[in-house]
């Protein structure tokens, strides 16, 4: 059986039964989406790394205690844990000051070591920065729904429950978020 065809549920089951390799496969499968979600929430790569670790340590503890019972919904479950940890972080630190450049960008994100050429890195970071800046221009409520739905893969119903609003409100915020992003793209002459 191809590894990428094994469901999250099977991997979780095998991990709980003692197969450590299954956790690594799960993390590798979802790490980018989860990290992107956290990073967009906290807007700081160092804090995002810490929260990413904390999130998975909590995931591990819950799995070992057999507290996970959400059939086939691993990624939304992890996203909810990550979001709660991010909220706790802001409560504790009252928004830590970020190290940013003149545009308000997180400078350490750009220092990421990779196998890309310099030119590839510049193009990628420019493209990422454009999208991230546009997302950051959205009102908080719209931004939150967009991050949780698009990157965190929570359903609109789950987002509505989590943020204590109706599903129509969650959908409305997402509609406004996408409309605003489209306008920002047109304004910046970005081709979608």
């Amino acid at each position, binding site marked *: 059986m191809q590894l990428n065809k094994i469901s999250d549920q099977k991997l979780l089951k095998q991990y709980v039964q003692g197969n450590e390799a299954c*956790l690594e496969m799960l*993390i590798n499968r979802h790490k980018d989406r989860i990290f*992107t979600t956290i990073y967009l929430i906290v807007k700081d790569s160092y804090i995002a790394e810490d929260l990413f670790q904390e999130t*998975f340590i909590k995931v591990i503890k819950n799995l070992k205690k057999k507290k996970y019972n959400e059939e086939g919904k691993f990624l939304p479950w992890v996203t909810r844990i990550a979001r709660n940890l991010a909220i706790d972080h802001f409560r504790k630190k009252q928004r830590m000051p970020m190290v940013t450049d003149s545009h308000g960008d997180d400078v350490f*994100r750009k220092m990421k070591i990779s196998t890309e050429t310099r030119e590839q890195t510049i193009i990628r970071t420019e493209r*990422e920065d454009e999208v991230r800046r546009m997302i950051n221009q959205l009102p908080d409520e719209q931004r939150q729904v967009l991050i949780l739905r698009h990157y965190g893969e929570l359903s609109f119903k789950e987002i509505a429950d989590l943020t204590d609003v109706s599903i129509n409100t969650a959908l409305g915020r997402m509609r406004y978020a996408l409309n605003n992003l489209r306008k920002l793209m047109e304004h910046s002459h970005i081709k979608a």
Partner: protein
Amino acid sequence: MGGYFFLHSEYYLKNLDVLFLNDELKRDCMDKNITQNDLLLLAYNELDTNRKLLVINALESNLSLQNEYHDILAVMGKLDEFQVQPNNTSLQIILEESSSAMEVL
């Protein structure tokens, strides 16, 4: 724009059966109010099967809806361009934590 939509909509490729709906159902579809929320839910694959068929069928015959749906997919595509990765150190820390938790058990 309609041609563009047909070429780029994976939903048509995944739901070819909807193209063969009978005329009665098609008329029924035309009578239903398709909202922006429906398009959003379709784009994120959250519609139940019946509603999904109605929305896809309405899209087939409504240029305005096609344009709206295309706009949603276009922004979603742009959002997909932003994806950042955690450091390998973070992954190692997590896996070590898992191993030690396993030893304790």
